[in-house]
């Protein structure tokens, strides 16, 4: 599979997800085992009404989706993937009003499992809002038969 087709498949994979659409996610970049997704600031996602800070759950969702996209974009060509486990560290509150960008890297795959690292950032790129590590299933590509 060429890189272009793989990127297109990964893009379709994300765009077909109703909840990714509900959060307004869009691709910034997709490559071999790497994905970058952006999510606009939205008052519906506020977790702390006193400050307007986005709820951690929305950030988890962005990083989970981005991690899944990185797995789908891996040269191993998985047919599908699902999260086995995900750990999120919240380092600081996201700045209200700013879009969030997640960047995920699928750094190792076996026949059955993909290992992923991700970070979430606002405009201050050098100072991440959250980090995640996860294990994802790999549904093998259909090889005819």
């Amino acid at each position, binding site marked *: 599979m060429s890189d272009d087709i793989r990127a297109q498949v990964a893009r379709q994979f994300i765009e077909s*997800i109703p909840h990714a659409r509900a959060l307004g996610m869009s691709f910034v970049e997709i490559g071999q085992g790497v994905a970058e997704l952006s999510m606009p600031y939205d008052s519906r996602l506020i977790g*702390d009404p006193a400050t307007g800070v986005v709820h951690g759950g929305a950030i*988890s969702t962005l990083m989970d989706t981005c991690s899944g996209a990185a797995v789908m974009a891996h040269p191993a060509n998985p047919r599908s993937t699902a999260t086995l486990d*995900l750990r999120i560290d919240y380092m600081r509150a996201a700045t209200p009003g700013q879009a969030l960008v997640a960047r995920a890297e699928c750094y190792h795959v076996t026949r059955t499992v993909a290992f992923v690292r991700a970070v979430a950032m606002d405009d201050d790129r050098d100072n991440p809002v959250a980090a995640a590590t996860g294990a994802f299933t790999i549904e093998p590509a259909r090889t005819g038969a």
Partner: protein
Amino acid sequence: MRKRPEPMQVVKERRDSALAALVAGVPYIQFLNITFDRRGDELTSVLNFDEQIIGNPMLPAIHGGVTAAFLETTAIIQLGWQELWQEIEGGDATVPDSLPRLPKTIDFTVDYLRSGLPRDAYARARVNRSGRRYASVHVEAWQDNRSRLFAQATGHFLMPSDAELTE
């Protein structure tokens, strides 16, 4: 002489309005349409199913991120509710003027056991340790059978009194 117990409706009304106030302030809880059932001090959170929480349209299954958010919300509200319960039920039984600030998540680890089916999900949180600064909470989520979990999670939280000091 022992004080007469309060009328049931007075007790119920105080507890339900305190819980409603705690939850109503958070837009994201409304966005995901998470509601809370209360029996005494025990809370069960309900993730009311909607097509927009789907993460895999082929199966279909609930988005793993929504599951994580549901579990995290359950943990946070449980911690906030425990603080609030002390205030409204300890001593003079009055609803305080201001709600307690909710704790902040330090880290959260979700264990996905099976895919979330396209129907309502339920969760309960157990506070394993709640100190002055940190709390450790375990959450379990299920759909059809209470004993067949579809996800569980453990998280650490910074309690609000200390969270304010770090701001």
